[in-house]
Every structure is written in C-alpha cells, then in structure tokens.
C-alpha cells in the first residue's frame, strides 16, 4: 500500500514509515515499513508491547522523532483543514509550527510531567490559544468593546481598540511593537483580550468537566490531582480543535476509576470536536472501549489492522491471538506469549515474530510479510494469509 494518495475520507496516512536510531550499540530499527491510515472522525487504537514502535510512530507524525532517531523512508500524508494534502516529513520547521497544535496535537502519558510546574494552568492553555487563535480572539475582543457603548470616549479604550486593529491589520507596526514592550501599558491595552481568552478557557475547562474552572485557571499543576491534570493536558491539546489528536497512553498512570472517566471524556469530546484520534496503549481493555479500528504493532511493524469487533472476534495474526489470550480472566491460568520482544538492533530475519510464533514455517525466516487484505477492512501481515487476497 505504498505511496497511495489520500482518499477524501482519510485524515492521515502513514506509508512504509521506517525510523532508525543510530546508537553506540548499533542501528536500532525501531520502526520498519509501518503503514497506517486514519479516517476522518475515527479512533484508531494502536496496541503493542513496550518497544514495538508505537510512541516513535506517534511522535514522527508530529515530525518530533526523538533524537538520535532518523526517518529513513516513507511518507506521512495529512489532509489539512483547507483539504490540501501535505507530507509532514517534508515540511520545514516554520510550516510544522503551524501544524502542531492547530491541526495535530498530542496528549502524553504522564500528565504531571506534561505540564510546566512553574506556569499556572491558565497561562499554559493561553499559550496554546495564542499560538494559533490570536486573530480570532482579537476579533472577539473588538466585538466586546463595540458592545460597551458608554465608554466610547475613554482614552484607554480607544488605545485598546487601536491596538487590536493594528494587531489584525498591521502586526509589524513599530508603534505597536513599542507599546507591547512597556509593561503597564501593555497590560492595559490587552485588558479585553485577556478577559476574552479567560472566558474561552473557562468554557474549555467546562467541556473537560472540571468543577470550579475559575479556581483551576489560577492553580499551579501540582495543586491538582492526576485526573485533573490529565483533563488540563487534554484541554491544551484541544484548545485549537485539532483535526487529529494523538493520545500516547493517556490513562496508564491513572487510577482505574479516573481512567474510565477520562476515556469517557475523550469519547464525548471526539463527537463534539469531530477530531480523529490515534490512541496508543498496551491495554486491550482500553482499546476495546475506545477504538473504532485497531492496529497491532510488533517490533516496529504493523502486523494486523482491523475494526475493533472484528479483531476481538477473529484475530488472524498469531501475535494478536497471543495478545488476546494473555488478557487475564478470572478462573483460568494466565497465558503468555513465549519468548521476549526481539532486540531491535539485530531483529530476526524475515517475519520479526517468527521465533515466538506457534505457526512458524520455513519461509517465515526469509520473507518479511506485507500487510494483505483478508476481508473488508481487515489487513494482516502474516505469510499464513499471503495469497488469500491480492491486495
């Protein structure tokens, strides 16, 4: 499925992505020819063990491949808001700043660490809003001033209006820049703007089901509980209603009850914002709860992609079968997949799963299987199913 153009209903398509880390021990082949696609408004769950390349793939979608990783091959096609299609891996840094946060944003695993400890919650959300929605906010502030007719002749208000108009029409004006540098005047001339943004944040926090948003805005992250912090992180990610939200194990470090609340919240927000979601996790229960389709990753490759019900009912890849069998069930002994995740410096030849596979054939050692279509929307990369379809 390499280099296929993006069809209209698709939001993002990762084609044959290959990421390698050049380390002292050798070249870590972290992601090898991984392919994914996400439709508009869909939640794609990515499951896999630690080190299967889930997070690297996710960060690479934002062109933030962790150092010393390098993208060796592949492309990531993304449909922007104006429906033009771009390849994220071929954008320059400036273009990327316009995409991150506005078109694609991300939620992290550790909410405590994802928030700046010395910045108030409100300031951090403001930052996200200012980065991409300044224009809209300034326009709103002008509206606010227009509504208050009685202080039309107030000097400060006139200066404020002038500032906003200048910010919209001529942001590189020297006079504007000078005013923005003088501490007290700077604050006075942005009074309405700050109120508007604050109002916007309160609305956003209400959507996150945060009680008493007025207090939370002025709190520092350490004053909030883990679940609250994760809601803030989600609020920051959704501040500009991105088209695609990448959630990297956002509930792994939370209590089970809080986890359920957050999953519920994400599901409802998806309806509201209409974003597509990539949900990365290693918890099969969470996957079943949240995703429309599931991609299973093993040792840097996508081994199976299927709608969630189909995957749980009819897993095809031996690894997926093993994963599903290793979900603990009361009353029966805990099963596990024999062996360990291979060292990615020197991965097994052919199919990377073959040393652990119960159905291993001789050709598995030589041929790396491609994703093939076995039924409607169900793809698997295993030689057992090669030839069943000619996709």
């Amino acid at each position, binding site marked *: 499925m390499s280099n296929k153009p993006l069809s209209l209903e698709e939001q993002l398509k990762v084609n044959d992505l290959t990421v390698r880390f050049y380390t002292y021990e050798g070249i870590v082949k972290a992601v090898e020819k991984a392919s994914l696609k996400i439709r508009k408004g869909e939640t794609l769950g990515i499951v896999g063990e630690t080190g299967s390349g889930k997070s690297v793939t996710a960060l690479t979608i934002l062109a933030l491949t962790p150092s010393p990783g390098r993208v060796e091959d592949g492309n990531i096609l993304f449909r922007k808001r104006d429906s033009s299609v771009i390849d994220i891996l071929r954008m320059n840094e400036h273009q990327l700043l316009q995409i991150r946060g506005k078109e694609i944003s*991300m939620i992290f695993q550790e909410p405590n660490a994802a928030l700046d400890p010395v910045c108030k919650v409100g300031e951090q959300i403001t*930052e996200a809003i200012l980065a991409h929605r300044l224009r809209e906010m300034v326009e709103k502030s002008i509206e606010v001033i227009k509504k208050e007719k009685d202080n039309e002749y107030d000097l400060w208000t006139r200066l404020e209006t002038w500032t906003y108009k200048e910010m919209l029409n001529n942001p590189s004006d020297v006079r504007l820049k000078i005013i923005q540098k003088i501490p007290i005047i700077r604050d006075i001339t942005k009074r309405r703007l700050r109120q508007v943004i604050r109002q916007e944040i309160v609305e956003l926090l209400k959507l996150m089901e945060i009680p008493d948003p007025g207090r939370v805005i002025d709190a520092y992250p350490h004053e909030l509980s883990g679940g609250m912090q994760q809601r803030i992180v989600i609020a920051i990610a959704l501040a500009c209603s991105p088209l695609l939200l990448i959630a990297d194990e956002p509930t792994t470090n939370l209590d089970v009850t809080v986890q359920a609340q957050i999953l519920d919240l994400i599901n409802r927000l998806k309806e509201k914002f209409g974003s597509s979601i990539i949900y990365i996790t290693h918890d099969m229960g969470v996957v079943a709860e949240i995703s429309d389709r599931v991609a299973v990753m093993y040792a840097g490759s996508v081994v199976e992609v299927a709608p969630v019900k189909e995957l749980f009912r009819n897993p095809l890849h031996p690894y997926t079968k093993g994963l599903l069998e290793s979900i603990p069930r009361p009353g029966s002994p805990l099963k596990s997949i024999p062996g360990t995740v291979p060292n990615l410096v020197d991965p097994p030849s052919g199919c990377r799963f073959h040393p652990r596979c119960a159905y291993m054939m001789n050709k598995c050692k030589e041929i790396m299987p491609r994703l093939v279509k076995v039924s409607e929307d169900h793809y698997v990369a295993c030689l057992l199913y090669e030839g069943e379809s000619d996709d």
Partner: protein
Amino acid sequence: MIRWIKIEESPRLKETKFILNRIRENPLSLVGLAIVISFAVIAIFAHILAPPPPGRDPYIIPRAGYFPEPQPPSPEHAFGTTQGQYDLYYGIIWGTRAAYRIGVLVVAMSAFIGIAVGSLAGYYKGVIDEVLMRLTDIILAFPSLILAMALVVAFGPGLDSITLALILVGWPGYARLVRGEFLRISAEDFVEAAKTIGCSNLRIIIRHILPNAIFPLLVYASLDIGSIILVAAALSFLGLGPPEGYADWGQLISLSRNWITGTAANPFAYWHVYTIPGVFLFLFVMGWNLLGDALRDVLDPMLRRR
C-alpha cells in the same frame, strides 16, 4: 445586613508571604538579609553619611595632610586615618558603594552571558553544545584568580578592569549551571508537550525552561556576590586596583599592610587600619552567603514545603 465577603488572596501575594515567612523562621537568614540591606542603605545614602567635598570625584577619599603614620579614631575622623591620612570612615562608606557596584555588575553580567551560552548549549545540544562548552572549559582550566590578574594587567589596573576581568572569568560557572539545568529540563515531557502545541524554540527556552532553571541560578548568584567582592579586594590588595586614594575596601586593607605589626611598645597601636576595613569586608561577604543559604532553603522545591 452585614455580608462577609471573603477576599481571595492572589497566588502571587500568597507566594510572597510564604517566602517572607520562611525567611522569618530562620534567624540566620534574617541576619544575612539585615546585613545586606544595611549595606545597601549605606551605599544609597553615601552622599549623606559622608558628604564628598564639592567639585571632586566622590570616590576619591579626602586626605588630611601627607603625614605617613596612621592616626587613631578622633572626633574629626570617626574611624581614624590610614597611611597618608586618608579618612577611613569616608573610605568605608564610599567603598560600600564601590563594592555593590562591582558585585552586582559582575554577577548580573556573568549571569547574563552564562544564561545565553548555557541555554543555547543545553537546548540545542550537538555541535553548538560542544563548541560552547569547550570554550567554557578553556576558561575554567585556568586558576580563576591568576586569570583575573592576568586580564587586569592586560587591561591596565583599575576598578573597571577588575570588573571586566571578573565577568570574563565568572561566566563559565553560570554557563555550566544553566546548561545542566537545561539538559535536565529539556528532557521533561512538558517541553515536548509545548512543542506539540506549536511553540517556537525561543518561546520554549524563555517561557518554559528558563523559569524552571532560574532558582539554582539565584542561589549561586547570591553566594557569588560575596566571593566576587573578596576576589576584587584581593586584586586591589595586590596593587591591581584603582589608583591610591580611591574608596575601595581592598585598597584600604592594602594601605594597612605596613602597620600590622604596630610599634615595639604597643603591637596594636594601629589596630584600626586593618580591623575596620576587614570587619566590613567580612560582614559584607558573610551577609551575602547567609542570604544565599536562605534563598536556597526557600526556593528549593524539595526542601520548601516541609
């Protein structure tokens, strides 16, 4: 009907109160603060405490004649006079101002250079880090006092040369500290999170990493002011300071060099010439050190909320 309105304290006010409270709880830090503030008062009101003779550089100590032997404290000269009849009281008062000028200027400038170098190195890593850090290593490889002396000799003796030399010798410490903090903090998730919402590198450095890295820097800076004054005094004592008669503590001590042993009859005949400037220098450095310790107690997030 009376309605009780509960006024919420703003968090900034609360924070300030907390810091003041912590300082109040620790008597030593209070002492440090008191010393630093009294010296600041002396420096600010030097014009009133020791009015300079009109029409002359106020930093030049007025002298009462040219007699070499120091005179003990008397009503005209509260702290006595030094060798060459320089008024010790006047020298101490205006020397405070000179000390503040050197200390604050050197620390501010070296912190500024250190922050710039350290943050670039720690944030961008790679080649930039390598080049900048090897540069700081070169400077750190020299014994700092010797390097400062060499620089002062090269620039020509004087207080400005001492200031410049101390800045050039002092910034690597800050650069190292800032770089370390940047390396640590830039690996944190919130930096990555800031990137994912589209923050530019400059914004991340200034808004997110620097405020998190600033507290160790404040502690280091306040401890550094004390030692910078000591080094400046040492350079001045060694004859690399301003011309004779300039109000500078190092110089006042240097003027007492020949009189430490006193006379045969009374070994402490000239006690005031070395004791008084020495005590002031000691108090000044100790005040800053105590204050630095107090700042560390207050600002260290690990120690504070106990």
